[in-house]
């Protein structure tokens, strides 16, 4: 299966994390899984490129990490549960992660969540 093939989803804007994605993102997710350890998080902070080298990440994955861009990381095969550990290194919370993907501000994102309870 081609690693470059665009992935289309049945529910727009919603990821089905299947085998195609799991193959594409294995190295990236393996690196993110290592961030369960504080020592590894520190090592990444000290030398991001060197740490990525150890996991043999693709150029696409490295660029997405540099851009701190969650949608790019998802497209590169990242799984949100492992990416959350990476995002934690920068103190990003799930509202900030959500807002970035929606292309809105954190405040707008929180207002959207509040509105969902009132419908």
């Amino acid at each position, binding site marked *: 299966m081609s690693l470059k093939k665009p992935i289309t989803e049945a529910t727009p804007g919603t990821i089905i994390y299947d085998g195609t994605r799991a193959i594409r993102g294995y190295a990236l997710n393996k690196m993110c899984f290592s961030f369960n350890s504080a020592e590894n998080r520190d090592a990444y902070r000290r030398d991001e490129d060197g740490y990525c080298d150890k996991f043999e990440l693709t150029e696409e994955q490295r660029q997405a990490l540099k851009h701190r861009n969650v949608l790019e990381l998802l497209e590169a095969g990242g799984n949100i549960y492992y990416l959350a550990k990476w995002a934690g290194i920068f103190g990003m919370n*799930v509202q900030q992660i959500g807002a970035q993907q929606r292309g809105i501000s954190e405040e707008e994102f929180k207002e959207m969540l509040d509105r969902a309870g009132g419908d």
Partner: protein
Amino acid sequence: MARVIGGIATSHVPSIGKAIARGWENHPHWKPFFDGYKPVHAWLDEVQPDLAVVVYNDHGLNFFLDKMPTFAVGAASQYKNADEGWGLPVVAPYSGDARFSWHLIESLVADEFDITTCQEMLVDHAFTVPMSLLWPKPGWRAVPTVPISINTVQFPLPTPTRCYKLGKAIGRAIESYKKDIRVLVIGTGGLSHQLDGERAGYINKKFDLLCLEQIVNDPEELLRYSVHDLVRDAGAQGVELLMWFVMRGAMTGQVMEKHHTYHVPISNTAAGLMVLENESRGRRN
């Protein structure tokens, strides 16, 4: 013989764990949410479970994509929590009941559920947050637990029907255990929420309220939904409803709803809580 005395389903949002760690239970933002658990504490005091089977989904603490079991059952005398990477304080270990675990494992495999057995199993926030909500300090009472982790990380996920049947098999296993103990089945996760993709932040109150009603009165109606239907209607992470289906399936007899709450939002999630009392019909074939 052991009995299934009831079931609890509750959300397990990490921010709840942070609020507990900071002692924010009476903070104006949090108080209405935490107050929703007070009737549950009263019920637990009344029914006095001896053991809890906790059905949850690991979020990349114990399991990685190298080996991803669909159903994994704890078989240890102790379960540790550990650093998940994004700042939730690590909590003290939980006691297990390895003898009961092995009975459960024997029974499930005989019932054609080819589960993975784990003599070591780190339990993440999806296990620890509900335990802290249900048995808060300082009133902590260490009920031994058996964790069961269900894969919701990597598709294909087990179907709602399969999860409901797993629940039924768990119920049969409990009620064939020779020791006279009172067992509670807990399912954690949900309700609607989505963390990833352009639809992040998706919440579907209408669907959640339908689930809260049908889980009690007509659970098999919900089994018409495929996993992909759940993703569409409850959000990508709302598939955690699967754990609610397992809990409901484990109720062996007449079910009575004792309590439920619905609270939007907790973090990015529509938080749900439900307590079911199970009037066991005794041992079944």
